[in-house]
């Protein structure tokens, strides 16, 4: 959908090229995140795609068309653009702000009104916000309005330059989730710039790690980058918690689950002891057929049968599509050091810290 071929930008008076021979392919419907240290040329790269900066050399195509062949203002009306400072027009209401590009495109009034209403719902703003001015909104609301404005004319391509950089971490997390949710519905081709590696990992279908001078050090899905950093720069940029970061990308379902020290309600105390010995633990889980009813300590055993035992419920449980990071969190905070895994309501096995660690080592 977007293709950069050997794109170079030299600013007059700059010490070296801001972006050097950069090539990048962005497929339709994917989110590509450009990430790298400050001053590495992320913004410059992004602005070359909507011609706010003209490349010194190289070629950029959007949907197969050379962007230099499209008049700049037409290109920009087809490409959504969101920046960190948002740049909402302070003298226009939220509705008028969102209507900016449709108005530039000369849409009819009623069509614009309908579209504005649709977008306000889409980005989860209250309908009452329509006639507010930007300064009457909170930071998070403004950011949503900025996204809505960029989406207004339904551009196939969106460029986002650190859009969540200025909001506090809690709101940022929520906006990221909303963006992913939105993307599932609108399927845009998004180029997203950030300097926050965690944000890149969370949002990107593919991540391009840039070095000073706009050099691509690695361009791959985040899981691949975390597993196989291409070089020392990438490794350093990923930081010291690479393993933990990877965990958040792998779902529990991808790890072989274990049965765990589980015995059926009808088993004898001896069976239970044998099972605990096998796993080297001093507790056991109790199944009723396929259903997990709870667990008990070894010391709770009294007599030969399990009938008198009142199973304690598992407080910690993870679902099959949770990430390993959530699973690990559950494991280390549970008393049994094990998390039972459920697929919907169905017990499918257990996961342990060792199992996770084995997976990472692969």
């Amino acid at each position, binding site marked *: 959908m977007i293709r950069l071929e050997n794109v170079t930008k030299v600013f007059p008076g700059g010490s070296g090229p801001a972006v050097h021979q950069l090539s990048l392919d962005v497929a339709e419907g994917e989110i590509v995140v450009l990430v790298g240290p400050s001053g590495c040329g992320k913004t410059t790269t992004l602005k070359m795609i*909507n011609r*706010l900066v003209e490349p010194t050399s190289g070629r950029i195509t959007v949907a197969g068309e050379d962007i230099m062949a499209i008049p*700049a*203002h*037409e*290109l*920009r*009306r087809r490409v959504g*653009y969101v*920046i*960190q*400072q*948002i*740049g*909402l*027009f*302070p*003298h*226009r209401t939220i509705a008028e702000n969102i209507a*900016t*590009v449709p108005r*530039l495109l000369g849409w009819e009034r009623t069509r614009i009104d309908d579209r504005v209403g649709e977008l306000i719902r889409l980005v989860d703003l209250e309908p*009452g916000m329509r006639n507010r*001015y930007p*300064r*009457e909104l909170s930071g998070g609301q403004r950011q949503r309005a*900025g996204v809505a*404005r*960029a989406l207004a004319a339904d551009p196939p391509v969106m*460029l986002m330059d650190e859009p969540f950089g200025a909001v506090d971490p809690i709101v940022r997390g929520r906006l990221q989730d909303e963006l992913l949710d939105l993307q599932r519905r609108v399927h845009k081709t998004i180029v997203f710039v950030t300097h926050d590696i965690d944000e890149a990992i969370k949002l990107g279908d593919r991540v391009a790690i840039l070095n000073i001078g706009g050099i691509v050090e690695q361009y791959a899905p985040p899981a691949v980058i975390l597993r196989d950093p291409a070089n020392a720069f990438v490794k350093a940029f990923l930081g010291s918690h690479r393993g933990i970061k990877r965990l958040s990308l792998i779902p529990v379902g991808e790890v072989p689950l274990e049965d765990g020290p589980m015995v059926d309600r009808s088993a004898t105390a001896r069976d239970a002891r044998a099972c605990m010995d096998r796993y080297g633990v001093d507790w056991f889980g109790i199944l009723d057929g396929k259903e997990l009813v709870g667990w008990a300590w070894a010391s709770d055993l009294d007599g030969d049968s399990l009938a008198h035992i009142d199973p304690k419920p598992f407080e910690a449980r993870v679902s099959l599509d949770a990430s390993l990071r959530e699973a690990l969190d559950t494991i280390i905070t549970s008393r049994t050091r094990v998390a039972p895994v459920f697929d919907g309501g169905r017990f499918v096995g257990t996961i342990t810290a060792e199992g996770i660690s084995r997976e990472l080592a692969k």
Partner: protein
Amino acid sequence: MIAAPFFRWDWVFDHLGLIWEKVSEHLVLTGIALGVGFVISMALALIGLRFPRTYPPITWLTGVLYTIPSLALFAFLVPITGFTVLSAEIGLVSYTLLILIRNIVAGIQGVDPAVREAALGMGYGSRRLFLEIELPLALPVILAGVRIAAVTTIGLVTITALIGQGGVGFFILQGLNRFFNTEIVLGTALSVILAVAVDLVLVLVERLLTPWTAKRTAAS
């Protein structure tokens, strides 16, 4: 000696027609000066913004004009343009330029670069950008300049009485010549009242033109 009253209301009531005439004249002189001054200032400000190298000489020149005392300026003009409205207006206009140009330029330059970038990023051309985004956003600063220029000009108009114009300055000059306090007080007070009134009107105009700057409570 019978103490003459300091201010004679009866004189005022006897001359309401004349007062009205001079007040109108005052407002017309002020209005022309502001209108012409604004057009010239806008043109020079645009030149200064478009070609930044021209901005220092523009402010230098208007600064010199501003520094020359008005009476001196009128004195230069009288031998050329006589005791006319033209002489008065040339002087009055030249005093509005510095304030207006500075505020127009500061207003436009003060527009948040992010807003400008967002507008360009959405496909605004430079002309539309100026008319629809930059100019409205600069309005509060520009109007602040207009207010200062208006109040200043109203005061200066009184001096043009010395070259045969003057609006309410006519009363001040005549009062001085006749040692008649009522007229001096009247002329001065009218000038102050006009300045305050025009300033208030401009504040209202600003409110109307820039609703987005108003403080508004959450709902409604």
